[in-house]
């Protein structure tokens, strides 16, 4: 048995080395197809298209098939991808949230190729921040190339409205609780909330504020139990925050919650920084003067990140083409072509900031100096089994508002899904 493993490793290593040397020397003569699978459409379509255009220019012999699947909060894309992988038809490269969403589902099932050689060859070990590489890899390898970074813990508001109401963006939840009742009296919703996944999104900002970054990390490494006193406290704080949200949340999309802030029906909204893209592109508002932002209360100096990344499944039809795609994604040019359009920031440390808007510049600066932690709601810290069960636990909390019982349930699903193992 041992010898077999050893010989396979040897064979794989040899094959990869061969392929990589071959790949660099033959880069110009790639032919055939490249099928890339993603859930980017609509407003995010142009960003992906920019990358595809660059790829076409570099490798005119390759026809790029853009297999985008959207809708259903990303579940449709998962259904199609999983059906194809189980059916033995993997796309050449697919989009996946970096972190446990990739590792827990695909790496543990041994469906991905280790990209460490590619990272070494391209000198990416130094191009990407250490914390990020740690998050997209395991002890056995690095499994995907990150294309962008989004921040989850951002508080959005309209500066003109806040002046009118005589309040300031709260730096902590206590600040928020001080101003929220006044806002409520004026008939303004203090914090706009939308459908269920945004409740998970809000929870991670609140929980990080309550737990602190060290305990947050301890939660996901299995060192801190969800039903510990600290964990229960996070749910209690979350309950207090929920009291100041709109009661029709579950029937709104996240954009409609953002609209509430834009229209002055609500004061604040906690949402990922794709909201900046929505407000500047669709709503034509200027970052800074038209809309303002701050780290969500109590999380100043901390950066909850999520990243989209692309991996290389085992046994794909056009491996060379896929490798060339990954090289483009990780490159500075590719990253700086994609991210300004997507409304995200580059994962690379040497990004060309002149191409980005004011929000992205400030986010980039924060990413460089803040404490980086992973997002739960967007697949970094926990595997898909936990995320799916957590949605049910959240549902239970929204119905019962019982912090103790919810924390217990969260611990149960953590054990069931092997968090920290």
């Amino acid at each position, binding site marked *: 048995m041992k010898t077999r493993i050893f010989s396979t490793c040897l064979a794989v290593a040899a094959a990869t080395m061969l392929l990589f040397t071959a790949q660099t020397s033959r880069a110009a003569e790639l032919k055939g197809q490249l099928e890339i699978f993603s*859930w980017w459409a609509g407003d995010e379509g142009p960003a992906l298209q920019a990358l595809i255009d660059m790829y076409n220019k570099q490798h005119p012999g390759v026809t790029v098939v853009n297999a985008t699947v959207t809708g259903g909060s990303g579940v449709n894309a998962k259904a199609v991808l999983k059906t194809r992988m189980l059916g033995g038809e993997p796309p050449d490269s697919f989009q996946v949230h970096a972190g446990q969403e990739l590792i827990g589902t695909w790496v543990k099932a041994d469906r991905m190729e280790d990209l460490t050689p590619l990272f070494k060859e391209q000198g990416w070990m130094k191009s990407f921040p250490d914390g990020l590489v740690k998050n997209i890899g395991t002890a056995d390898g690095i499994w995907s190339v990150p294309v962008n970074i989004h921040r989850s813990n951002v508080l959005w508001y309209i500066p003109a409205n806040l002046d009118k109401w005589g309040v300031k963006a709260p730096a902590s939840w206590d600040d928020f609780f001080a101003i929220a009742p006044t806002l409520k009296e004026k008939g303004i919703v203090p914090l706009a909330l939308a459908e269920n996944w945004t409740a998970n999104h809000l929870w991670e900002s609140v929980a990080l504020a309550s737990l602190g970054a060290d305990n947050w990390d301890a939660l996901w490494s299995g060192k801190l139990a969800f039903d510990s006193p600290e964990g229960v406290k996070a749910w209690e704080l979350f309950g207090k925050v929920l009291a100041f949200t709109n009661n029709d949340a579950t029937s709104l999309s996240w954009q409609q919650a953002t609209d509430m802030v834009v*229209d002055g029906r609500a004061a604040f909204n906690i949402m990922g920084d794709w909201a900046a893209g929505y407000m500047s592109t669709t709503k034509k508002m200027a970052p800074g003067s038209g809309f303002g932002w701050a780290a969500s209360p109590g999380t100043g100096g901390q950066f909850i990140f999520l990243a989209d990344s692309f991996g290389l499944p085992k046994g794909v039809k056009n491996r060379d083409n896929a490798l060339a795609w990954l090289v483009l994604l990780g490159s500075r040019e590719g990253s700086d072509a994609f991210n300004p359009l997507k409304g995200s920031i580059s994962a690379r440390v040497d990004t060309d900031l002149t191409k980005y808007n004011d929000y992205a510049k400030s986010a980039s600066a924060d990413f460089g100096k803040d404490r980086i932690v992973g997002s739960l709601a967007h697949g970094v810290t926990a595997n898909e089994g936990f995320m799916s069960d957590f949605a049910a636990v959240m549902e239970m909390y929204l119905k019962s508002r019982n912090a103790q019982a919810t924390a217990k349930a969260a611990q149960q699903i953590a054990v069931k899904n092997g968090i920290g193992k």
Partner: protein
Amino acid sequence: MRLRLSFTTVALYGVLALLALGYLLPAYLTIITALKLPADISLPQSWQLPPTLNYASFTDAFTLLRPNIVNSVILTVSATLLSTVLGSLNGYVFSKWKFPGSELIFTLFLFGMFIPYQVILIPLFQTLRAMNLYGGLPGLILAHVVYGLPITTLIFRNFYAQIPDALMESASLDGAGFFRTYTRIIFPLSIPGFVVTSLWQFTQIWNEFLWGICLTRHTSYPITVGLAQLAGGQAVSWNLPMAGSILAALPVLLIYIVLGRYFIRGLLAGSVKE
């Protein structure tokens, strides 16, 4: 007497008009949203007429959806045709050529109607791939034909049950066999049945989404998938999907308006007396 009659007439028209208004509200909402600029779309203003008309939504949506529309037409027409013809033949056998066990087989057919599509997604994918049918329209057509069979068979069986057996017997006395009886006697009488089943199948297949997205590659995506792509993404400009959904609904809507009368006639011929 006259007064009372006119009162009921007024009441009747009043109720009908009110209901019609209610039924049309969603259509109104779709159309005005499609004509708005993305920045003008927000919930409190959803009923107001667009401040500036934005016809570009329709041309943009059409450019994006054109390949999907072509796919959907091919898919829907061929799958509808195949499943209705097969259903008609099955109905003919189940109603006029009963054999021991045919009732049981018919009942087993019926259960096929109740399979939720997502339940059999994985085996369906694997089977189609093994048959080399994954990725294109033929596989999708096959799937829709198979899962359309129960309902088309049911409708045709009930439809043929009313054709008097005497007609069959006289045909058999004339020496007409199985297929000749079908083509000479049964088929010419089946037009209303075909209208009903085709309309049903056309609607179902045209509007089906999950298989469309899972069983085909992007070049073969049907219209519903194209539409979902328009409405996908993190920030949606709602005018586009709304315009797209009007485009997507048009062909089916047209068929309903044109065939509406025949539809009722077909239903009348098909399922009333059983």
